[in-house]
Protein backbone atom coordinates (compact mmCIF):
# COMPACT_ATOMS: atom_id res chain seq x y z
CA UNK A 1 0.00 0.00 0.00
CA UNK A 2 1.40 3.38 -0.98
CA UNK A 3 1.34 6.15 1.56
CA UNK A 4 0.36 9.75 1.08
CA UNK A 5 2.42 12.82 1.91
CA UNK A 6 1.16 15.64 4.12
CA UNK A 7 0.66 17.81 1.04
CA UNK A 8 -1.41 15.00 -0.46
CA UNK A 9 -3.51 15.07 2.71
CA UNK A 10 -4.24 18.74 2.07
CA UNK A 11 -5.26 17.91 -1.50
CA UNK A 12 -7.52 15.13 -0.16
CA UNK A 13 -9.02 17.55 2.37
CA UNK A 14 -9.86 19.98 -0.45
CA UNK A 15 -11.34 17.14 -2.54
CA UNK A 16 -13.40 15.92 0.42
CA UNK A 17 -14.72 19.45 0.91
CA UNK A 18 -15.56 19.76 -2.78
CA UNK A 19 -17.76 16.68 -2.53
CA UNK A 20 -19.08 17.23 0.98
CA UNK A 21 -20.63 20.62 0.22
CA UNK A 22 -23.26 18.65 -1.65
CA UNK A 23 -23.98 16.19 1.14
CA UNK A 24 -26.61 16.23 3.89
CA UNK A 25 -25.81 18.60 6.74
CA UNK A 26 -25.04 15.79 9.16
CA UNK A 27 -22.25 14.39 6.98
CA UNK A 28 -19.01 16.36 7.11
CA UNK A 29 -16.09 16.38 4.71
CA UNK A 30 -14.06 14.68 7.43
CA UNK A 31 -16.60 11.83 7.58
CA UNK A 32 -16.31 11.43 3.82
CA UNK A 33 -12.51 11.33 3.89
CA UNK A 34 -12.34 8.94 6.84
CA UNK A 35 -14.90 6.65 5.24
CA UNK A 36 -12.78 6.56 2.08
CA UNK A 37 -9.68 5.62 4.11
CA UNK A 38 -11.69 3.01 6.01
CA UNK A 39 -12.97 1.37 2.83
CA UNK A 40 -9.48 1.15 1.40
CA UNK A 41 -8.06 -0.28 4.63
CA UNK A 42 -10.83 -2.80 5.26
CA UNK A 43 -10.52 -4.04 1.70
CA UNK A 44 -14.05 -3.16 0.63
CA UNK A 45 -12.44 -0.98 -2.05
CA UNK A 46 -9.33 -2.30 -3.72
CA UNK A 47 -7.01 0.04 -5.56
CA UNK A 48 -6.78 -0.72 -9.25
CA UNK A 49 -3.31 -1.43 -10.59
CA UNK A 50 -1.82 1.67 -12.16
CA UNK A 51 -4.25 4.09 -10.54
CA UNK A 52 -2.40 6.48 -8.21
CA UNK A 53 -3.65 6.45 -4.62
CA UNK A 54 -4.79 10.07 -4.67
CA UNK A 55 -6.94 9.59 -7.75
CA UNK A 56 -8.24 6.32 -6.32
CA UNK A 57 -9.24 7.89 -3.00
CA UNK A 58 -10.93 10.70 -4.93
CA UNK A 59 -12.93 8.07 -6.80
CA UNK A 60 -13.87 6.33 -3.54
CA UNK A 61 -15.11 9.65 -2.12
CA UNK A 62 -17.18 10.25 -5.26
CA UNK A 63 -18.66 6.79 -4.93
CA UNK A 64 -19.54 7.30 -1.24
CA UNK A 65 -21.08 10.67 -2.08
CA UNK A 66 -23.16 9.00 -4.83
CA UNK A 67 -24.51 6.56 -2.25
CA UNK A 68 -25.63 9.46 -0.06
CA UNK A 69 -27.23 11.15 -3.04
CA UNK A 70 -29.22 8.08 -3.90
CA UNK A 71 -30.44 7.93 -0.33
CA UNK A 72 -31.17 11.63 -0.06
CA UNK A 73 -32.54 11.98 -3.63
CA UNK A 74 -30.98 15.35 -3.97
CA UNK A 75 -31.42 17.22 -7.21
CA UNK A 76 -28.37 17.33 -9.44
CA UNK A 77 -29.46 20.68 -10.88
CA UNK A 78 -29.50 22.17 -7.40
CA UNK A 79 -26.01 20.82 -6.79
CA UNK A 80 -24.72 22.24 -10.05
CA UNK A 81 -26.08 25.62 -8.98
CA UNK A 82 -24.01 25.32 -5.79
CA UNK A 83 -20.88 24.86 -7.86
CA UNK A 84 -21.71 27.80 -10.13
CA UNK A 85 -22.29 29.89 -7.03
CA UNK A 86 -18.79 29.05 -5.81
CA UNK A 87 -17.34 30.60 -8.97
CA UNK A 88 -19.98 33.31 -9.32
CA UNK A 89 -17.40 36.13 -9.18
CA UNK A 90 -15.41 34.67 -12.06
CA UNK A 91 -17.37 34.63 -15.35
CA UNK A 92 -14.60 32.80 -17.19
CA UNK A 93 -14.60 30.06 -14.58
CA UNK A 94 -18.37 29.75 -15.04
CA UNK A 95 -17.81 29.33 -18.79
CA UNK A 96 -15.33 26.55 -18.09
CA UNK A 97 -17.74 24.84 -15.67
CA UNK A 98 -20.49 25.02 -18.30
CA UNK A 99 -18.12 23.52 -20.86
CA UNK A 100 -17.08 20.73 -18.50
CA UNK A 101 -20.73 19.93 -17.81
CA UNK A 102 -21.20 19.46 -21.55
CA UNK A 103 -18.06 17.35 -21.86
CA UNK A 104 -16.40 19.90 -24.12
CA UNK A 105 -12.66 19.84 -24.68
CA UNK A 106 -10.53 22.79 -23.55
CA UNK A 107 -10.22 23.86 -27.19
CA UNK A 108 -13.99 23.80 -27.64
CA UNK A 109 -14.50 25.76 -24.42
CA UNK A 110 -11.99 28.42 -25.55
CA UNK A 111 -13.62 28.67 -28.96
CA UNK A 112 -17.18 28.88 -27.66
CA UNK A 113 -16.47 31.75 -25.29
CA UNK A 114 -13.65 33.54 -27.10
CA UNK A 115 -11.04 32.66 -24.52
CA UNK A 116 -7.34 32.35 -25.37
CA UNK A 117 -5.32 29.35 -24.21
CA UNK A 118 -3.53 31.68 -21.78
CA UNK A 119 -6.84 32.94 -20.38
CA UNK A 120 -8.01 29.35 -20.06
CA UNK A 121 -4.90 28.28 -18.14
CA UNK A 122 -5.03 31.38 -15.92
CA UNK A 123 -8.69 30.71 -15.16
CA UNK A 124 -7.95 27.10 -14.27
CA UNK A 125 -5.21 28.31 -11.94
CA UNK A 126 -7.68 30.69 -10.24
CA UNK A 127 -10.16 27.84 -9.96
CA UNK A 128 -7.57 25.56 -8.36
CA UNK A 129 -6.62 28.25 -5.87
CA UNK A 130 -10.24 28.94 -4.98
CA UNK A 131 -10.91 25.22 -4.51
CA UNK A 132 -7.83 24.95 -2.31
CA UNK A 133 -8.78 28.02 -0.27
CA UNK A 134 -12.25 26.57 0.22
CA UNK A 135 -10.71 23.21 1.05
CA UNK A 136 -8.14 24.39 3.57
CA UNK A 137 -10.10 27.01 5.45
CA UNK A 138 -10.84 26.19 9.07
CA UNK A 139 -14.63 26.59 8.95
CA UNK A 140 -16.18 23.12 9.14
CA UNK A 141 -18.69 23.05 6.27
Amino acid sequence: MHLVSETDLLRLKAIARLHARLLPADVTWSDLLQEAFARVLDGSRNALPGVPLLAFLGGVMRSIKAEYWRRARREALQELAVIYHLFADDPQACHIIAGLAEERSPEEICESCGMSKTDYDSTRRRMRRLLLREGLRTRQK
Partner: protein
Amino acid sequence: MKTRRPEDSLEQVLAALERELIDTTDEEVLAVAAELGMNPSMKGSAAFLGVKSPLISAGAPATSSSGEPHPSVGLSRRERSGPRGS
Protein backbone atom coordinates in the same frame (compact mmCIF):
# COMPACT_ATOMS: atom_id res chain seq x y z
CA MET B 1 -28.94 18.88 -29.82
CA LYS B 2 -27.86 16.23 -27.34
CA THR B 3 -29.74 16.30 -24.02
CA ARG B 4 -27.61 15.57 -21.01
CA ARG B 5 -28.91 14.36 -17.69
CA PRO B 6 -28.12 16.87 -14.90
CA GLU B 7 -26.52 14.16 -12.79
CA ASP B 8 -24.14 13.28 -15.65
CA SER B 9 -23.20 16.93 -16.07
CA LEU B 10 -22.62 17.23 -12.35
CA GLU B 11 -20.41 14.14 -12.33
CA GLN B 12 -18.36 15.57 -15.20
CA VAL B 13 -17.86 18.85 -13.39
CA LEU B 14 -16.96 17.25 -10.06
CA ALA B 15 -14.53 14.80 -11.66
CA ALA B 16 -12.82 17.66 -13.52
CA LEU B 17 -12.56 19.84 -10.40
CA GLU B 18 -11.24 16.88 -8.45
CA ARG B 19 -8.55 16.37 -11.11
CA GLU B 20 -7.63 20.04 -10.81
CA LEU B 21 -7.03 19.55 -7.10
CA ILE B 22 -5.00 16.38 -7.62
CA ASP B 23 -2.94 18.17 -10.26
CA THR B 24 -2.19 21.12 -8.00
CA THR B 25 1.53 21.46 -7.37
CA ASP B 26 2.97 21.29 -3.86
CA GLU B 27 3.97 24.93 -4.30
CA GLU B 28 0.37 25.97 -5.03
CA VAL B 29 -0.93 24.03 -2.02
CA LEU B 30 1.64 25.60 0.28
CA ALA B 31 1.08 29.08 -1.16
CA VAL B 32 -2.66 28.90 -0.49
CA ALA B 33 -2.01 27.56 3.01
CA ALA B 34 0.32 30.52 3.60
CA GLU B 35 -2.36 32.94 2.32
CA LEU B 36 -4.65 31.48 4.97
CA GLY B 37 -1.99 31.96 7.62
CA MET B 38 -1.21 28.27 7.87
CA ASN B 39 2.16 26.58 7.85
CA PRO B 40 1.72 22.89 7.03
CA SER B 41 5.33 22.17 7.92
CA MET B 42 4.55 23.04 11.56
CA LYS B 43 3.39 20.28 13.84
CA GLY B 44 -0.30 20.75 14.65
CA SER B 45 -0.85 23.20 11.80
CA ALA B 46 -4.46 24.32 11.35
CA ALA B 47 -4.19 23.09 7.77
CA PHE B 48 -4.59 19.55 9.08
CA LEU B 49 -7.61 20.22 11.28
CA GLY B 50 -10.05 17.37 10.80
CA VAL B 51 -7.62 15.30 8.75
CA LYS B 52 -6.25 12.09 10.10
CA SER B 53 -4.86 9.61 7.67
CA PRO B 54 -4.02 6.05 8.54
CA LEU B 55 -2.15 5.99 5.24
CA ILE B 56 0.36 8.70 6.03
CA SER B 57 3.87 7.66 6.97
CA ALA B 58 5.20 8.98 10.27
CA GLY B 59 7.08 12.20 9.73
CA ALA B 60 6.18 12.45 6.06
CA PRO B 61 7.16 15.96 5.06
CA ALA B 62 4.81 18.52 3.61
CA THR B 63 7.43 19.64 1.16
CA SER B 64 10.28 18.02 -0.63
CA SER B 65 12.72 20.47 0.88
CA SER B 66 12.41 19.37 4.51
CA GLY B 67 13.96 16.19 5.80
CA GLU B 68 13.94 12.90 3.98
CA PRO B 69 11.93 13.06 0.79
CA HIS B 70 8.61 11.26 0.96
CA PRO B 71 8.01 8.89 -1.94
CA SER B 72 5.06 10.90 -3.21
CA VAL B 73 6.70 14.31 -2.90
CA GLY B 74 7.75 15.62 -6.24
CA LEU B 75 5.53 13.28 -8.23
CA SER B 76 4.47 14.79 -11.50
CA ARG B 77 0.86 15.79 -12.02
CA ARG B 78 0.36 12.80 -14.29
CA GLU B 79 1.87 10.44 -11.73
CA ARG B 80 -0.50 11.75 -9.03
CA SER B 81 -3.66 11.76 -11.07
CA GLY B 82 -2.95 8.87 -13.44
CA PRO B 83 -4.32 8.65 -16.95
CA ARG B 84 -7.33 10.82 -17.72
CA GLY B 85 -10.60 9.08 -17.07
CA SER B 86 -9.22 6.77 -14.40
